[in-house]
């Protein structure tokens, strides 16, 4: 949908009240309200978190976009900024935080590590990208992304919010919405993704037969 057309209701306002009345769509009003006050979760993982802090300081000033209110509790946050390397040991905590955030919620993968594992992908304790577990809305490249790049990524998220419609968003869809709950992974001999339990068992037993053969 064209961004400009959203606010054109095809209704002519009489000249004498043009300064007093504005007409827009409900979607536009709703999205404008949410995109202008995205509250990120105060949550830093690694190097990228430092650039995230820098983006909030006077020189870059994230407050210009309504994103300066960082909430330490997931219950009050709209957006999770995964700022750094996601390790297997940390992953259950991240998933728990995500599950505790109320809808609507967004995930931004900041930097190479959160997007794909980055320079540490080969590491045995590293999850190769948070998108293996969480639905990511915006990926920001860089190692670490500069504050400007972070702000550019967050503006992309705002554009994404602008294009949403109350009619189609998942959190108002009673039939389809399942709570967006991501099952908690377990720390076993390695990271156990419980959604893949059967698959893991099959491959592990195939491994055993392969070795004995």
């Amino acid at each position: 949908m064209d961004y400009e057309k959203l606010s054109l209701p095809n209704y002519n306002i009489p000249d004498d009240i043009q300064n007093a009345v504005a007409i827009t769509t409900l979607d536009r009003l709703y999205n404008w309200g949410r995109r202008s006050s995205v509250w990120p979760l105060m949550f830093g993982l690694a190097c990228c978190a430092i650039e995230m802090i820098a983006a909030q300081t006077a020189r870059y000033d994230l407050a210009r976009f309504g994103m300066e209110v960082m909430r330490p509790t997931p219950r009050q946050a709209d957006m999770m900024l995964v700022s750094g390397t996601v390790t297997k040991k940390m992953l259950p905590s991240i998933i728990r935080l995500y599950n505790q955030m109320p809808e609507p919620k967004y995930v931004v993968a900041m930097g190479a590590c959160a997007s794909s594992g980055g320079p540490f992908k080969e590491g045995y304790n590293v999850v190769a990208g948070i998108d293996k577990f969480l639905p990511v809305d915006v990926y920001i490249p860089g190692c670490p992304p500069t504050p400007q790049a972070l702000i550019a990524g967050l503006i992309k998220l705002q554009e994404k919010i602008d294009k949403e419609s109350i009619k189609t968003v998942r959190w108002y869809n009673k039939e389809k919405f399942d709570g967006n709950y991501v099952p908690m992974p377990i720390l076993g001999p390695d990271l156990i993704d419980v959604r893949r339990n059967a698959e893991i068992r099959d491959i592990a037993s195939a491994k055993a037969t392969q070795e004995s053969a």
Partner: protein
Amino acid sequence: MATALQTQTVDLVARFPAIVTADARSGYTGFIVNKENLVEVATAVRDEFGFDLLTAVTGVDYIAENKMEVVYHAYKTIGGTGLAFKVQVERVDPIEVPSLINIWAGVDFQEREAWDLYGIKFTGHPDLRRILMWEGYEGHPLRKDWKEPFFEEETKPFKSRWPEGKHTFSEEKNPFRDNLNFPKDFDPEKYIVNKEEDLYASLERYTTKDVEGSMKTDHIVVNMGPHHPSTHGVLRVAVTLDGETIIGLKPVMGYLHRNHDKIGERNTYLQNIPYTDRLDYFNSMSNNFGYAITVEKLMNIQVAERAEYIRVIMAELSRVQNHLIFIGMLMNDLGAMYTPSLYAFEERELILDIFEAVSGARMMCNYFRFGGVVRDVPDFALKKIHDLVTDRLPAKTDEMERFLNENEILMARLKGIHVLNAEEAINYSVTGPVLRATGVPYDLRRADPYSIYDRFDFDVAVRHNGDMMDNYLIRFDEIRQSLRILEQALKQIPQGPINSQKPAYQVRVPAGEAYGRIESPKGELGFYVVSNGKPNPYRYHVRPASFVNLTAIESICRGTKIADFVALLAMLDIVMGELDR
């Protein structure tokens, strides 16, 4: 610089004949101690020879010789070169080495790390649990025969990517199509999840005493982190509380364990430089410095004269911005949210501009090379540094000190809250500003000078009370001393080449070992590198200041109020990238 000859001046062989032998392998220094007599020898090293500070403990897996080695590096807090002694054991499980925790309490976490990553059991260690990985993890990752799930080849550059440059996904090669590896016949549904009983059992418990007339109280265990706004990253601490008083405390770490050591041993020497940037991500220049001088020690090369000055300038600028951030973040932790740290970040940005001008990146500079630095400093950047150092930073430091030190609340929070005394600090291997605030003038730039620090006129910042106030003020002192060094370096910097070597993708490193260390803003940053003559380091170990300094946290916090814990943690100036690696 420590040479083999200077190290040998301490003759352990003469003192312990038949127990100790000199390490005769080519390129190696130090002594090899009999496993059975390790505690006896270590006691003598500390009490008779005066090596009171045990800085680094690490394992090395010599799989070809079927040996596991534990390397200890001991130093004197009065300065001078160190002493390396090693224990070699058969590489057959269970691998057991006596723990030195009763001689140097600072080995606590480092021994746990060696147990976690190498499977070396330290007998007599009271709390030998995994530290970086979780309990229940399969295998000891740093052993040479242990392969990570995304294993491709023993060493880089991988044949698939060089020289042909074919691109493949690591996921395609792993049966689980992910960074996973499970033992054969593993059934996830039958797996019993570790409830961390060991951790809670290791906490000191408060037993309820039935005293007549007093109220019955009970202990409470609180977990702070890994997601907590004031733990400076993803650190977790389990605390036992009696009311508001801390009785026992155990840090739990590894939430940012990015496997520097394992990746570093696959990388070529040069490829490790960008990885060192990401250790202590506030001070990538300092990290580069430590790694560069270690490998240069192994290669036995000189650094170009101009590059030496550039290195010192960058490292000291890094120290200034680190301490400014420290002060800002400390205020955050004490409840002065944001405003002081906004002031600190303002100055930091100006220093980062310089880093960007010389290296192309704000934070991850990747600037040092063996024998020099990668690019010359442009004249406009030198002018900018000069203006900052002579004009702006001294004024801003004074301003910050004036704003803060006249604040009564801040003084009340800081004065008289004991952090450490000198004996405790040395025993726990604490280094850096925290040690100097207890009255020990131990600064590697003076105690064991590296690079060209012996040419500059500066004082080692020392404070004597060891309380929070001194820990806080010593950062201001250090900023001023760094500015002094910077001023002199800017005056003396010569023209000339910036690297003594030809640019090369692979450097030739002769076989041997080296332990290089620098005074990073957080303490002693050490690198232990073993080379076997191949293009990759055989062993690449980082001895991070934050990790070892954190060993003292339980002793620091016991008996204080939980509200002070956050500030005491800030005093240690930990950074998770370096702590967990």
